[in-house]
């Protein structure tokens, strides 16, 4: 392990921050903020690529760890590390950032310094959530990730920016109050914020079960709103409607889903097991609800919002199915969804830039005028539907088959119906936007097809969709090491009774607790 491995995560966190400061200080001439942000995000992306390149595969537990005391009392540490679960999420954020910058190149014209510096701060906050192994540090980044998003939605919202931003912020912020109390309570009982130590403590039975129920519920409610899970999805449609494309791409779903994996199922396995039936039900309802409502939306941003609800609920189904295959599929689906959703956002943003409307009925027959846009859109739509050989298939198939085999047949069948509905609304969207008779709008506004810049960001995404669909093991191998098989949970609970006490230190890989 070279010395850079120790501090690579800190670098990934600090480079965007440094970029943000630079953007804020230098004047807004010659598109300087754009170039600085692009350079910063590209550098960060290259740094994130170091992680999978040097990840020791087959080894469970956290790698690239760095653990430095930050505050003495209460004892908060700057403790970061990645494992198979978070590794690719960090790379995904690293990938989507420069893409977002290029997407905003010409669309953001005013107050560019503010936009780009907040964009970079947002990136740091998101990476921080994925790599934090100290509960307070995690909470800090989790809250911080709300701020740039809210401000930028207010600044660049299409019609009702502040209202959507306020909704977005409050929906997520208010449930994080019980989360903080729960974290403080855990600290009062265990005197540690360290993830590995807390994992051991909650599994070992020293904490009263009745209190743990509420604590786990507090954690879950904060994450459930962020994903979102039905019925807490009220903020999603407005946010997708108003947010600038670059930000909407980044924010959807990943933080909440990762937190569920790591800090709910990971920290409170017994409570997760107890509440799993409810969440499976909510997830399947969400999958169907989102898909059905996506069918009847008239505005394509709102359609994307409900489609996202549907897809993210499928991943929640995977998480609370509590099967190894389901988890691997769920994480893979998060990655695929990030890529596919990102591409769709870019394409829809490009359409809106050209035709200044997001109402689906005003479009029609664009395939003749915008052939490249159409092809890319069709590929992305097919990936979203889950066509085999594209990235969406792998995760979807793993989730559905593991649910069918390991969890519950009726729920799996219900969720599979949603796949059909998914094809329905996506293909119908494609048809209404690009095929059929040419609409008045399409004829009146002559618009250019995808330009170089847009192609430059879309092509890697589409290629990625293809590669992820054909060679999933490139990613699944590392994901599998990060996602503990459910047997480990049972063995952790068995450990309560045994007297063998593994020494748990801050840097101990969590897998050792089960050996």
């Amino acid at each position, binding site marked *: 392990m070279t010395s850079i491995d120790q501090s690579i995560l800190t670098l990934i966190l600090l480079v965007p921050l440094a970029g943000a400061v630079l953007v804020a200080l230098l004047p807004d001439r010659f598109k300087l903020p754009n170039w600085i942000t692009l350079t910063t995000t590209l550098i960060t992306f290259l740094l994130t690529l170091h992680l999978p390149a040097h990840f020791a595969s087959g080894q469970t537990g956290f790698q690239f760890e760095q653990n430095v005391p930050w505050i003495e009392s209460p004892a908060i540490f700057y403790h970061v590390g990645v494992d198979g679960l978070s590794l690719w999420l960090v790379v995904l954020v690293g990938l989507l950032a420069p893409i977002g910058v290029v997407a905003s190149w010409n669309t953001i014209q005013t107050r560019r310094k503010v936009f780009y510096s907040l964009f970079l701060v947002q990136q740091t906050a998101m990476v921080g959530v994925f790599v934090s192994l100290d509960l307070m540090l995690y909470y800090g980044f989790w809250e911080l990730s709300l701020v740039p998003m809210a401000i930028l939605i207010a600044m660049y919202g299409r019609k009702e920016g502040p209202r959507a*931003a306020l909704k977005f912020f409050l929906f997520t912020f208010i449930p994080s109050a019980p989360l903080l109390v729960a974290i403080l309570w855990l600290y009062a009982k265990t005197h540690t914020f360290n993830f590995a130590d807390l994992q051991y403590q909650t599994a070992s039975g020293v904490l009263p079960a009745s209190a743990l129920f509420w604590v786990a519920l507090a954690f879950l409610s904060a994450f459930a709103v962020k994903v979102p899970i039905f019925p807490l999805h009220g903020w999603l449609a407005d946010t997708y409607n108003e947010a600038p494309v670059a930000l909407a791409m980044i924010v959807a779903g990943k933080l909440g889903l990762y937190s569920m994996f790591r800090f709910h199922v990971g920290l409170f396995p017994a409570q997760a097991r107890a509440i799993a039936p409810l969440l499976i039900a909510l997830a399947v309802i969400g999958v169907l609800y989102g898909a059905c409502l996506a069918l009847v939306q008239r505005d394509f941003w709102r359609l994307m919002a409900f489609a996202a609800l549907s897809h993210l609920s499928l991943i929640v189904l995977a998480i609370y199915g509590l099967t190894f295959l389901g988890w691997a599929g769920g994480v893979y689906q998060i990655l695929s969804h990030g890529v596919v959703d990102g591409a769709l956002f870019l394409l829809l943003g490009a359409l809106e830039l050209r035709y200044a409307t997001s109402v689906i009925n005003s479009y029609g027959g664009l395939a003749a005028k915008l052939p490249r846009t159409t092809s890319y859109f069709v590929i992305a739509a097919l990936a979203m539907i889950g066509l085999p050989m594209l990235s969406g298939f792998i995760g979807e198939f793993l989730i559905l088959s593991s649910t069918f085999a390991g969890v519950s047949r009726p729920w799996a069948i219900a969720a599979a119906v949603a796949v059909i509905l998914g094809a329905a609304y996506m293909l119908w969207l494609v048809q209404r936007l690009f095929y059929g008779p040419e609409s008045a709008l399409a004829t009146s506004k002559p618009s250019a097809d995808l330009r170089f810049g847009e192609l430059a960001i879309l092509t890697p995404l589409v290629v990625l969709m293809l590669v992820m669909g054909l060679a999933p093991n490139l990613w699944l191998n590392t994901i599998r090491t990060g996602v503990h098989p459910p047997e480990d949970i049972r063995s952790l609970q068995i450990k309560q009774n045994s007297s063998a006490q593994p020494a748990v230190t801050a840097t101990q890989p969590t897998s050792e607790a089960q050996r």
Partner: protein
Amino acid sequence: MTPVHDIYRILPEVILTLTGVVVMLIDATLPPAWPRRSLGWVAAMGTTAALWASLWQLSLPEGAGFFSTVETSAFTVFFHVLICGIVLVALLLSLDTLPENTHHQGEFYALIVFGAVGMCLLTSAVELLVVFIALEISSISTYILAGWRKHTGRGPEAAIKYFLLGSFATAFLLYGIALIFGATGTTQIYQVAALAPAAQNQTLVLAGLALMLVGILFKVSAAPFHVWTPDVYEGAPSPVVALLSTAPKAAAFALLLRVVYEMLPNLRSIWAPLLWIVAVLSMTVGNLAALRQQNVKRMLAYSAIAHAGYLLAAFAGIGEIGIAAAAFYIAAYAAMNVGIFAVITLVAGYDEQLSLIDDYRGLIYRSPMLGSLLIFFLISLIGIPFTGGFFGKFYSFTAAVGGGAIWLAIIGLLNSGLAAAYYLRLALVAAQRPSEDQKIVAPKPAVGAAVIAALFLAAAATLVLGIIPGATLDAAQSAAHTLQAPPQSALPPGPLQFPQ
């Protein structure tokens, strides 16, 4: 142990008094036509000197002076530094934002400095009558300062209300002191601490405590004694509110810490539930009433009431943990509050041409620096991590949870979530694109070196407290330690005398 000359115990106060006198003398001798800005600089320099003197006092052995009426310890130094810092920032702010033709500018600066004398003395007084005197010194100067905008309707109204209600509350305080004296025969805090548990008439002690708390809770604008806050904050000039919402509150909280943790710690089972109720009431009333406020200063006044509630939650903490948490929160709250009122002064102008939330629309487009600072301070007030406001709330509620008051923490943090609604509303309006037909006649912000220094100090303090709170926390903890274990030399010599 070489005895320390008593004057060193009140060195900062002496420096501040001299500064104030010098300012008034120069003001009297200067020709009326000359600008008075330089007096502000004199006052600022004097305050800086007092700040250094406070830090120097750390080198003195802990103890009391002047017949055990004032003491120096880590606790007093912490608050002295805090109060002098706040006063400095307020002075720098006033320097640039007070219009040239403001009346009696020299006296303005002198009053601020004299007020600082009272506040500093309040934190180091260990004798109840000196406490009263110091409280009056600080209050009277703030009463006058509140009414500085003489020619408006709201200014004198604010001053009269503040004066009358403040005197009413101080009367309660004085009566409480009298009752304590009746019960224990002494007004020296350490002696009271020693004698009160054994006093014959416990009811008298309780009544005295109750009345003293009424007076102190008024000063910190805790519910149900908060009714003066919105009107006074709205009427007073914004630089004065920057001072008013932070420094006297800090001094009053220091006094509260002393009274409950040092003077009557054995009555914890009695005052702790009361403070719990007051905390919940303050948070809830402050936050709910702020939700519909359209006037920015009134909204921030309610927010000050709510923050008093969060601060009082720290008092549920046991012993040193509670004191340290409260001290840290006061520092963080002072930094962000003085910052946000500084920004408001710059945006709205001394004459407050822009007072409504809607007037702030598109601030970040008009003036990115001010807009970003406004949003930054609002975020700190909400309690987002990596700002001072978050750690303040964090320590406060950690202390509460450690002391067993879980429900207080839950209510407090839910209130925090609720509060985000109105802070964020202002922040988002400031971030919003200005509408095409908007005609905002924005006053030209008077941005000079002094104001930039003031804003920088406030913002830097908020950031530092959010990212590297360690140093301040250590200072707060040593402050807490000295409060819990008052120095032996502070106890008055000789056997304790009972009244016959």
